[in-house]
């Protein structure tokens, strides 16, 4: 069955450092992958999308990599700030006709001042 794994433990890092979050998948051939941010009591908010033929994508302090051989995506936040503290979700989209989204469990990030 399809399985998407993210760091189950919360990630605590010091302000100014780079946070790296991992998304691993098995039994899957995604068309593309998205990363979302979710704050408590709110719905997820889209951050970045990377396609299956792209290796890396950047947006301001965010960077996403996608390795279809390793079946892994890494999400980086550089120069992290306390305001970056949230849960980050990866979502794989499978091109099975309806582009169904499958979400990981999310990683909770806490940036310490």
């Amino acid at each position, binding site marked *: 069955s399809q399985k998407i794994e993210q760091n189950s433990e919360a990630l605590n890092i010091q302000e100014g450092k780079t946070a790296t979050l991992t998304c691993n998948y098995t039994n899957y051939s995604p068309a593309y992958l*998205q990363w979302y941010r979710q704050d408590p009591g709110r*719905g997820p908010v889209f951050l970045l999308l990377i396609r299956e033929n792209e290796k890396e994508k950047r947006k301001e302090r965010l960077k996403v990599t996608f390795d279809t051989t390793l079946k892994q995506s890494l999400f980086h936040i550089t120069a992290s700030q306390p305001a970056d503290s949230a849960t980050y979700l990866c979502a794989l989209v499978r091109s099975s006709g*309806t582009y169904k989204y499958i979400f990981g469990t999310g990683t909770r990030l806490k940036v310490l001042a």
Partner: protein
Amino acid sequence: GAGVSQTPSNKVTEKGKYVELRCDPISGHTALYWYRQSLGQGPEFLIYFQGTGAADDSGLPNDRFFAVRPEGSVSTLKIQRTERGDSAVYLCASSLTGSGRYNEQFFGPGTRLTVL
């Protein structure tokens, strides 16, 4: 409206009762998704609409769950004979199209359902 809205924000019901959860997507978005999210988990796909039709309902857990989108805009998720295990946050999302490969989803704030 400016974003996806969901009503009610909270719903408490008793086991065995029927509930309806409503989603108002962003105007002009043809694709609409329902998800269920339990504490500490990611959103779990339930159903996806493209226009008025359910393009993929493979995530509905059983026949107690049903969703409609009669005019291609507002959608209602209906749960019959609720069970305590149905307690979760139900999220709705819309995107400009569903068949396009690269569309981001815009999520509503969710409805927190509690079945006593």
